[in-house]
């Protein structure tokens, strides 16, 4: 039963965060709009990974495989910025 409860809690958190994304889009924070939206989206992705995709209960190898691609996300951002920030 407690198991299902955590799913429902996560689901509610996701809905609240979606509301937050919509809410923030009405504020004009300049560049910070994107930053805030990305922080919220990353939080949601983390929740989905940890609970809905069971990463919390997985062995280390699987967690490692799930985290490894973040390195490549960093690579594509750094590589693209190395162009756009030096034009």
């Amino acid at each position: 039963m407690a198991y299902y409860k955590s799913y429902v809690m996560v689901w509610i958190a996701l809905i609240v965060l979606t509301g937050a994304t919509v809410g923030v889009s009405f504020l004009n924070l300049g560049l910070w709009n994107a930053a805030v939206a990305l922080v919220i989206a990353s939080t949601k992705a983390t929740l989905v990974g940890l609970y809905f995709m069971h990463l919390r209960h997985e062995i280390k190898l699987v967690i490692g495989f799930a985290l490894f691609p973040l390195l490549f996300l960093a690579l594509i951002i750094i590589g693209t910025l190395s162009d756009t920030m030096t034009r």
Partner: protein
Amino acid sequence: MSQTESYLAHKGFKSWALTMDHKRIGVMYLVTTHLFFLIGGFLALLLRLKLLSPGPALFSAHTYDVLFTMHGAMMIFLFIIPAIPSSLGNFFIPLLIGARDVAFPKLNLFSYYLFVSGILVILISLVQPIDTGWTFYTPFSAENSAAVTTVSFGLFLVGMSSILTGLNFIVTIHTLRAPGMTWYRLPLFIWGMYGTSVIQVLSTPVIGITFLLLVAERLFGVGFFDPAKGGDPLLFQHFFWFYSHPVVYVMILPAMGIISEVIPCFARKPIFGYKAIAYSALAIAFISFLVWGHHMFVSGMSTTAGVIFSFLTFFVAVPTGMKIFNWIATLYKGSISLDSPMLWALTFIFLFIIGGLTGLFLGSLATDVHVHDTYFLVAHFHYTMMGGTVMGLFSGLHYWYPKITGRMLDERWAKHAWWMIVVGFNVTFFPMFILGMQGMPRRYAEYPAKYHSLNVLATVGSWLLAVGIVIMFANFIRSLNRGAIAPANPWEALTLEWQVPSPPPEENFEVIPTVTDWPYSYGKETGDTRGK
């Protein structure tokens, strides 16, 4: 159903269409991908025929654009990316590691159907054939009236299939190795396929998302790539090459894996530098993600980024050079027999060295400005991809044909085809290096008369190449029924797939073998097992 019955024993459409046997799925991929190899090759012949004359001839410039786009897109997405991993990889990964199937057999069949659905969607696009080149650069692809959206959707499905196949192989290699099959006892083809699968899983989602962004741009005018709306056309190129550079290693790493199996077997010597070859596959996979900007030196990317990407590009040459060194060291003082798989493997080494070294001219910032978008690049790419990957594939096909079909190829005809293809290939593509250095741009339907004679030479070469390929495929088809019955282990190889009957039984192994040694202890008969 008895366990020793061949995997080919059951007949009928349903037994193939609903199969979850990795061997049958491998064969289905083999047939599908090679169909597109033949179609793509036919389109190349048309292109070369047109270039026989410098002026307008045969068909319009627009048709030329459509044909080279179809040639490129088909060869890349429907043939060369899946050709080795999905076909030979599917067939041989479980056999080589001592497993009965891949980790997720149903997912495996599902990936095949995703692949076929993608192909069907792409075929629909032929109503309004695209002329963007296989690279789909914005803004042209975003504003183009042809069926770019349809093709993007089709390639999205093909990409999904590629991701699932890679995922399946990674899990298979991690979890289904036979008892005693430690990482350092794995055949090197497996190491190559592991590196390949990692790239497939990590890079393909990026191209999938990029296609979705392109579709959003086309359908809803979002403006990711449109400067007027705050977008950046170069962003498309960054995303596209973040996938498409690593993916050339999806094409070449499995071929390198095949070469690492064939060379020691036909030189009767233990492979030289096992760990160096194994880890260089992973090193290539990793470095391949750091160098994509070398496709954008003249696209308007910043000079600073150009310097960084050019510098990083040179690092790819290191693990690649290590592999070549190790193969040649394996050949040294070996007792070499020149059967057809070995001929193809040696051809791979020879042509791939030319392809690899000319890549350095393109990876160097200064020389690339001169040869970029010329025939030099076309020659380089075909030396690495056809001279490299396809020669490695041919080596694998000749090596494993007896295992897959249970029949031997006609060795004499295999060698005739080899001669024709090697000569034809070089006559076709070597002149393109010279044409490129002289400044002939690629992707134009017409060219100045001063380039005429070398173009004639290249076109004649393409005919030799075509005849060779026809002979080779005729041999493949004819030997299905008329080849000599293959013994279990015609090459006296030591890897596990040769220890089961040809063709293998449906369950691969009656009893899962226990592995006690690496598979490269060749040369016992001569007492030479150095490198162990």
